[in-house]
């Protein structure tokens, strides 16, 4: 009886071992990553946030720009949807109506009061402002680079009210919906980070690749430059550059320049790592074989050397991402990066530094929570990937 039970288990064991030994590098990394619970949770959080960023226009009930401002509810507190109150239960979530009054009683100032008797029901998939999920509008200097591309235009929104309004995270000083702004800001900050990472990645690949592959005096000169760039403190340098950006630049232009600056300062660490790896790798036999077969240098670097550590590059990019997002925020926070009409996390956080906000309008801090969550998610995923890509880390089957 025992033997009958034992055989399938042994079989399973053998299969699992076989699968382990025949797995590709990608499968191994994925298997290790999956067993890391905090990294998996962070990964899901990250995916959700990216999706939230992409579908921001659909999820947000109001236009995040001035066009969508609610002039009857400036600096308004967050409205929390309820299912029941003293008037009974409702299957449809509702918020309370807000009324605004200005009379001799209120000393002729606008005073908003919440009417607990009047409900504003939330409706789902309502029609609202028109948006395009893919909306590329670049207004760069010169008309040749202008791109104006729209696709997937809709006007359906996840939720809204039939009358009155709903501001889940409250509104800011000009009445813009903070919930909508936050969702859009996530996307902008991610985009700046991605562009910055890409630029620094390409630079690192070229500079590190050339230095590592050729070695000798080319390596020494490139190393000197890399070291010098690495020592320059980035944020003060950004500030020096950003301050000279003319005020009349469009927000897209600013966006590009900031990504460019982030990328131009961010490459040295990765370049150094690529170089060190190539220096050891280029002495291997397979490189010699390729050289003897007459392959040109570019081909060897691209086809033979780089694939040997793609996983490390991916991990490195993932790890450098939160720093990019952080730099963007820091720069925007100082007021030298993206500015208020643009929705970036940094631009939103810039609003919280006023004493007025600290004491009276604490809901301005809600975007900060999203920023912390975003950075934490990136860090955990990056760490998980690093552990997973390291063949010497302890493997759990």
């Amino acid at each position: 009886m025992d033997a009958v039970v034992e055989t399938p288990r042994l079989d399973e064991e053998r299969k699992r071992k076989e699968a382990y030994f025949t797995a590709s590098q990608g499968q191994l990394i994925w298997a290790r990553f999956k067993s890391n619970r905090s990294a998996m949770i962070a990964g899901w959080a990250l995916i959700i946030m990216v999706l939230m960023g992409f579908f921001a226009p659909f999820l947000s009930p109001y236009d995040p720009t001035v066009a969508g401002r609610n002039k009857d509810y400036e600096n308004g507190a967050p409205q929390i949807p309820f299912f029941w109150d003293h008037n009974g239960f409702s299957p449809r979530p509702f918020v309370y109506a807000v009324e605004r009054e200005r009379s001799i009683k209120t000393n002729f100032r606008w005073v908003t009061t919440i009417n607990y008797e009047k409900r504003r029901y939330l409706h789902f998939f309502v029609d609202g402002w028109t948006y395009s999920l893919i909306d590329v509008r670049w207004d760069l200097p010169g008309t040749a680079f202008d791109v104006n591309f729209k696709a997937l235009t809709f006007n359906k929104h996840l939720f809204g009210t039939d009358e009155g309004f709903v501001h889940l995270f409250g509104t800011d000083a000009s009445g813009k919906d903070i919930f909508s702004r936050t969702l859009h800001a996530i996307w902008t900050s991610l985009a700046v980070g991605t562009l910055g990472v890409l630029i620094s990645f390409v630079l690192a690949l070229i500079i590190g690749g050339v230095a590592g592959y050729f070695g000798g005096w080319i390596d020494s000169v490139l190393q000197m430059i890399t070291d010098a760039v690495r020592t320059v403190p980035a944020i003060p340098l950004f500030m020096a550059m950003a301050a000279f950006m003319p005020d009349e630049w469009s927000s897209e232009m600013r966006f590009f320049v900031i990504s460019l600056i982030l990328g131009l300062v961010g490459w040295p660490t990765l370049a150094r790592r690529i170089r060190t790896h190539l220096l050891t790798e280029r002495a291997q036999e397979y490189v010699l074989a390729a050289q003897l077969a007459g392959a040109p240098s570019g081909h060897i670097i691209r086809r033979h050397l780089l694939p040997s550590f793609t996983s490390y590059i991916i991990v490195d990019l993932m790890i450098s991402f939160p720093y990019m997002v952080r730099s963007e925020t820091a720069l925007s926070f100082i007021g030298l990066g993206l500015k208020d009409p643009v929705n970036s996390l940094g631009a939103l956080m810039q609003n919280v530094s006023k004493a007025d906000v600290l004491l009276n309008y604490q809901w301005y801090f809600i975007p900060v929570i999203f920023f912390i969550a975003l950075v934490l998610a990136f860090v955990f995923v990056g760490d998980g990937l690093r552990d997973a890509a390291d063949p010497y880390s302890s493997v759990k089957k």
Partner: protein
Amino acid sequence: MAQFIQFTLSRAVMAIVTLLTVSLIVFSLMELVPGTCAERYLAFKNTQGSQITVADIEAEKKRLGLDRPFLVRWASWVENVFVRGQFGESCILRLNINQLLADKFWISLGICLAALLAAYLIAIPVGIVSASSKSPVTNNVLRFLSYLGLAMPNFLLALIIMLFSTVMFGDSLTGLFSKEYRDAAWSWAKFGDFLAHAWLPIFILGWSATAFALQTVRALMLDEIGKLYVTAATARGIFGRRLLWRYPARHALGPVINSLGFDLNRIFNELPVVALILTLTESGALLIESLARSNDQQLAGAIIFLLTASIVFLNFVTDIMLALMDPRVRRGLMG
């Protein structure tokens, strides 16, 4: 000993070469921005009501030597900085940059170095203990805390502390000096007053630096602690604190010392944000002022160069320190 001197000299030469490269980068960047120093000054004067002609701009350019080729100007800037230690005049304020920056730069540097020191005073013991601790709770808590140090923007921390102090003590904790000491000459009383104000920026700057340092120390210790020489030492009957500090820690701390310069770099990066929040009167805040309002490239170049120079200098010092501390290197150098 001769070898040690040779080593020091070669490191010094390398540091100077790095500084020259940096100065070239900074100088070129300052050159790339739209507008020259002369135009800027005259534009400023124009806003003050005086009439400006093209001839004025040309004359001013000539006076400042801006008509010379780029490399010549760079060389003369380098000569002024490296040989005489003079950064020249600022574009708009027309004041000597050395006088303008001296106090502010030293205060900034002092605060940053104090933050760095504080970070490692906490991170080294905690990192070593956490690496050797088997308890998953301690490890996870420390890991989460150090991640939070990275993710929590330090201006938020500053705001929370300031809000707390405003509500609790009615003092917003801004500035670096009390009113009566602001323009006074340096004295012990002023220094004490400074210390009483400086703890907050030091704490805020040290916050994320500690998180980084903790991660580094912990990772390095974890690498070392599993190695055979540690097992061998345990087999010889050494354990506990003695084992940790005498064996793996000595190996693990080498790279830490080596990375001090880059940690200082990171702290400099945080400086402007914190300075803005606390509205300190030091280099960070001055940088914002001089850049955001009047975009003064002479001043900006000088500040960035000074910051970089202190990092390069720290790197040089740590290189020498490491050589003296590591017996393998020391024997190789001193015989």
